[in-house]
């Protein structure tokens, strides 16, 4: 626009390009200035530490013993033969699988119910979403209180004549409890994403199905589900990536126990680094965590590119 206005009053093309170049230079300088803080942060707090953690993982580094010697792949060999690391991978797998299944199915069910637009829907949406804004540690503390052997949940179960277990101190219920606490904490977020997807399903399609004699159940599976499946996939991957980072819940509810039944990857990493001061070994665990998260996130980006058409 500027150049077309200028064109008439400008004597020669040489001056014009010079002027534009000057403006371009100013632009470029502003551009660099604007991205500098973020780039410094990336260099010092993201990429630098990432390189460092790979480097540390190749060292035998115990802060208490004061050792820091290059040891090659030793830490990684140790990982493979360390039963507690294998246990922590397994615990993480159980946690992630349990969480993604329960979270996604409950989120979808709640979204479908809210989408019926009954009176009071807004209130219920507020209820289902509210734990999302409660701080994770606070939510976990309250559930920890409820799940005590003589806590609220068992108190109410006793009223019904059921003898509830000591949820957080038994190997067979501890992980389930942690998963459930986490499901209710964040299911509201996925519910909202599903609700948006459901509302993107054209009404006419469902009405056409009804005219063709399909009942609500059938039209849900044949029409709604295929249309929202990209969202389901996306939400599932996001939930898995989030579940790999679970830490505070474990620290507050079970401290990794009983035994190592709830020692998930990040909790194991924390223990190795900040309880046993095994910085080198903990760094190897970090690298494994990074690889899992990075692969999943890249898969998620690819998925979005190919599948998601609700974005505007």
């Amino acid at each position, binding site marked *: 626009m500027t150049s077309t206005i200028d064109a008439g009053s400008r004597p020669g093309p040489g001056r014009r390009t010079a002027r534009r170049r000057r403006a371009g230079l100013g*632009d470029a300088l502003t551009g660099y200035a604007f991205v500098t803080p973020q780039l410094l942060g990336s260099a010092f707090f993201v990429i630098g*530490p*990432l390189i*460092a953690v790979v480097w*540390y993982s190749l060292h035998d580094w115990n802060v208490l013993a004061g050792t820091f010697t290059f040891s090659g792949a030793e830490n990684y060999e140790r990982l493979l033969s360390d039963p507690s690391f294998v246990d922590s991978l397994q615990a993480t797998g159980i946690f992630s699988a349990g969480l993604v299944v329960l979270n996604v199915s409950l989120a979808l069910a709640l979204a479908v119910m809210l989408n019926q637009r009954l009176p009071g829907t807004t209130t219920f949406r507020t209820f289902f979403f*509210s734990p999302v804004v409660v701080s994770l540690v606070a*939510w976990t503390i309250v559930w920890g209180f409820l799940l005590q052997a003589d806590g609220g949940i068992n108190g109410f179960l*006793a009223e019904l004549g059921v003898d509830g277990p000591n949820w957080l101190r038994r190997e067979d219920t501890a992980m389930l409890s942690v998963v459930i606490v986490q499901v209710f904490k964040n299911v509201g*977020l996925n519910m909202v994403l599903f609700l948006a997807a459901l509302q993107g399903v054209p009404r006419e399609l469902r009405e056409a199905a009804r005219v063709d004699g399909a009942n609500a159940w059938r039209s849900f599976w044949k029409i709604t589900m295929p249309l929202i499946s990209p969202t389901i996939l996306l939400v599932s991957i*996001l939930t898995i990536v989030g579940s790999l980072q679970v830490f505070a819940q474990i620290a507050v509810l079970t401290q990794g126990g009983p035994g190592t039944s709830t020692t998930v990857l990040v909790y194991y990493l924390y223990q190795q680094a900040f309880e046993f001061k095994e910085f080198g070994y903990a760094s190897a665990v970090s690298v494994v965590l990074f690889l899992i998260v990075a692969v999943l996130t890249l898969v998620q980006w690819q998925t979005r590119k190919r599948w998601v058409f609700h974005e505007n």
Partner: protein
Amino acid sequence: MRTELASPPDDAATSGADADAGRSGERRRRRRPIGRIVLLVVMIVAAVPFVFPTWWMVTSSFKPMSEIMRLPPTLWPTSPTFDAYGQVFELQPFAQQYWNSLYIAAVVTVGTVLVSAMAGYAFARVRFPGVNVLFIVVLVGMLIPIEVTIVPLFRMVNALGLIDTHWPLIVIPIIGAPSVLATFIMRQFFLTLPAELEDAGKVDGLTRAGIFWRIAFPLARPATAAVAIFTFMQSWNMFLEPLVFLSSKENFTLPLALTQYVDAYGGPIWNVQLAATTLTVLPVLGVFVLAQRQFVEGLAQTGLKG
């Protein structure tokens, strides 16, 4: 999405009006009320695990220690007391910790909004050599959760002598990995900005920085609100970082402080812990109820755009 949810359900208003409509309509209406009542009951039951913990937290915080584990459980404190609230402030410098969390979250929020708006704008609208490569470099931050780099970050903070200060809790989130998502959301927003607006600014003789400050940034309010809300919540909820970087109680932030109400054997002093938790949770819930739309949208962004 919101408008549809907010609008009054039309079925409810009209259901009684045309009592003697056709037969099929009658049958449909006869079937539907039962379905709707069942659905309502299911929703009420489903709401229990979402609402009850908060209820239990608030009521238990007013119970004396003797009542808190009583069987059968009491839904309402029989002899309410403020004792636990007094102890919250006696056992720990709770007011100080509250302030720590508040001011850190506020500074991180303002800082992140500024940094991510500037970076997002530059990546979206300004053409300069290397812009794409630099953007990819920044995006790497989305692949790296803070847990992965916590060991080197600890070492760095330690080497700088900043352990047990609030610096790492402020600076790392503002320019490190946590702000990358904010930058990404800002960039997505600025990409949609019509070029004519900027051209108008150029005609008026504004520099690039001027265009950003006076035109683009003020227009970015929806994106800014989303970034502000999820950044605030992220900082307010931080747990691993304060656990690793802080050591003295007067420097603690709330999530860490909440876990410290324990007796000599490490067992939680429940009523005090729940009182402190109530003080932490209720203000946020209050703001959420008032600004629900912004919260839902802001937090959903972390899912959608991440």
